[in-house]
């Protein structure tokens, strides 16, 4: 078919941050589907909790302290996370490198405390359905924590190579910031469900 040029796009930039970039939308898509997974798992937990009059099924209450420490660590990590985002937008390599190292460490720290959360649940996954559900919820979030920390560390290493000097890599840093927000925000309802809902029963 014959063509007639009507539009010149040669001046367009070659990368964009945030919602301008397709990767941001892809990340949002994965958040939506993983968020649905979280919501359904939480829904299943609440379904069982309302079904049985004595929820917790006579199990001892979980020790909330490791979970509370993780929660505080995660909330605190949001501050450097968003400072990092600002530097990524400005494509400033020095501060981005420092920020990525900080975020890797702030990802590892809750993961270490998370290790102590499982015994603090005071029940095994195969004791009863209450135990199963809180292990599932904690496991689901831990999977996300591990994947995102792994991703952050790989990206940190990448930013220390010559590949880092690229608009696209700074965009990746921005998307990493975005996904970490998701990991933190999904934790809050799960934290309440695991540690505080059983105290109501």
């Amino acid at each position, binding site marked *: 078919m014959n063509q007639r040029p009507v539009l010149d796009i040669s001046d367009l930039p070659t990368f964009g941050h945030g919602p301008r970039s397709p990767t941001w939308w892809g990340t949002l898509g994965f958040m939506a589907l993983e968020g649905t997974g979280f919501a*359904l798992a939480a829904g299943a937990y609440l379904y069982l909790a309302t079904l049985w009059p004595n929820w917790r099924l006579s199990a001892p209450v979980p020790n909330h302290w490791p979970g509370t420490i993780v929660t505080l660590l995660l909330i605190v990590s949001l501050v450097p996370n968003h400072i990092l985002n600002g530097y990524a937008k400005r494509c400033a390599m020095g501060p981005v490198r420092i920020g990525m190292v900080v975020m890797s460490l702030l990802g590892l720290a809750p993961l270490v405390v998370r290790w102590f959360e499982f015994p603090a649940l005071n029940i095994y996954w195969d004791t009863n359905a209450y135990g199963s559900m809180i292990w599932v919820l904690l496991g689901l979030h831990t999977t996300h924590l591990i994947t995102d920390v792994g991703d952050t560390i790989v990206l940190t290493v990448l930013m220390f190579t010559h590949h880092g000097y690229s608009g696209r890599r700074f965009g990746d840093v921005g998307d990493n910031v975005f996904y970490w927000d998701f990991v933190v925000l999904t934790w809050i309802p799960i934290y309440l469900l695991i540690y505080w809902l059983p105290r109501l029963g």
Partner: protein
Amino acid sequence: MSSADLTSERDLPPERETSVRGDIAPARDGPRDTGMDDASLHRWLARTWRTPPGIIGALSSVDHKVIARRYLITAFLFLCLGGLNAVAMRIQLSGPQRGLIGPDLYNQLFTMHGVTMMFLFAVPIVQATGIYLVPLMVGTRNIAFPRLNAFGYWVYVSGGLFAWVSFALAMAPDVGWFAYVPLSGPEFSPGKRADVWAQMITYTEVSSLAVAVATIVTVLKQRAPGMSLDKIPLYVWALLVTSFVVVFAMPAVMITSTFLILDRLVGTHIFNPAEGGDALLFQHLFWFFGHPEVYIIFLPATGMVSSIIPAFARRPAFGHLGLVLSLIAVGFLSFGLWVHHMFATGLPKLGASFFTASSMLIAIPNGVQIFCWLATLWDGRPVIRTPLLFVFGFFFTFVIGGLTGVMLASVPLDLQVHDTYFVVAHFHYVLIGGSVFPLLGAAYFWFPKITGRMMSERLGRWHFWLAMIGFNAAFFPMHIVGLWGMPRRVYTYPAELDWGNINLFISAGAVLFFLSFVLFAFNLVHGALRGTPAGDNPWDAGTLEWATSSPPPSYNFTRIPVVTNVEPLWAERGALPVASGLRVDARELIISTVAEAHPDIREKSATPSIWPLLAAIAVGATFLYSIFTPWAIIWGAAPIAVTLVGWFWPKGDPEDEE
């Protein structure tokens, strides 16, 4: 682009931050397509966008058309396998107390039939059609996240092989396609069969989720300049809505199958009522996915119908906005119906009434679509060709299926015919009528684009009538035998019940229906080898996929079209307006804004890579191993991590920078 579009203030890209360059390596520019003659342009683009030669090259392909072709062929093979399952069952049921197939094999057969048709045929084939057509229809050069798309295909193939190798080893799932607990739980299904179901489901849904995300981003961010939301083709709208439904529905089945395998393998009690779990929870979670699933299969088919009808009625679709809103309404409502699959479980009456109402409600947007199509045909000058015949077949069959659906939405009737052949008849009318007939029409319609050749019209008409007669002969009598009380999922029945003759008739219809697919397969092969050359636009249709050659080149369009109308090729008969200024030595494409499709970024699309295949192998091996020990997840993590790092680590191509 009209002046109105150019001056539109809405949704303009933000001020370009040209001043903030930051620590970015100096841009390495390359040759652009501006002013380049067609022959040089073709040479450059063909070299930049080609799939590398050789086996490794083929396995590394990220071209959406190559991946889609593989998907289509694989899904068709699974259709044949699922069809053979059905024929085997029909031969066994053709008379009372036949001894061809015993109960154990029969259980595996109907489970594999359902699993194959739903998870390995229906969803993959509608997504595959989208992978092929959506990038072409929105006027871009590749799907978003091409490597994720390739990964999706490999995951799907290995999931399908996993199920069918299990069948060959007589360890296929035998608990029905929805694998209800407690039957599929650890107590009543020892062995590995239910584990195969659970892991294969989780695994193949990873694939459809990946494709859904890639499709959504392609539609939202890669549309040709000027293709604002109101100019998106209806088929693309259908795929967009479907992909959103996939994103919110598929996680439910993954949660279900994961909970099941946890109960079976590590002793959790999620579905075990003796330890505080609940068996009905399984059904809620499963059908929260399972009902939207029906619309995941059906909505793309309505998109196909909305493409075929305007092309043959010779006018744009009547009620474009109404059709789009209906698609969106169906997408939302599909999440509010799941409990109507559970009317026989003794739910509270008020809840059941709510779901009766919502089940009847969804008939309204579907009805709106049907009336819009009829109006398009009414007002047009229809040219009756095979694709349109299949659309007529769709109307006839789907409306019958829809009517029995409204009947089944009422609880008393549902209780009466629950688990009988009446239900089998209903959902085959809906699924085959609502999805397979439009798909067959779509095959005849887009085959010329994919292969460059036409399928035989004469064989097509034979195919249509054979399919129509065979289908109705096989499935209509099932309504009757269902009302007589014949239950589903029984491997035989006693002669005294007098169901022998009608079942023989049904089996004869099934064989006829199967033969129609043999004829179809012959027509496909014959068309691909001997068909008359099609040219770019054999049907004189109006959407962008017909603007390029048949089959399209690896780069889809020599220049990205600029869209001015919902049927761009009808609006611009003389010459297609296009954009220029993209690099030709790197895989550049246009990223545009979400609502108005203003061009915003020249972004690079990923190059071919073997890593998605390796990642799929690592993930597949982990899933396979996990049915034997939960430690597989720990052991599998390392190879998965390595392959993912290999996938994302830049290799120094121009596409990896900026």
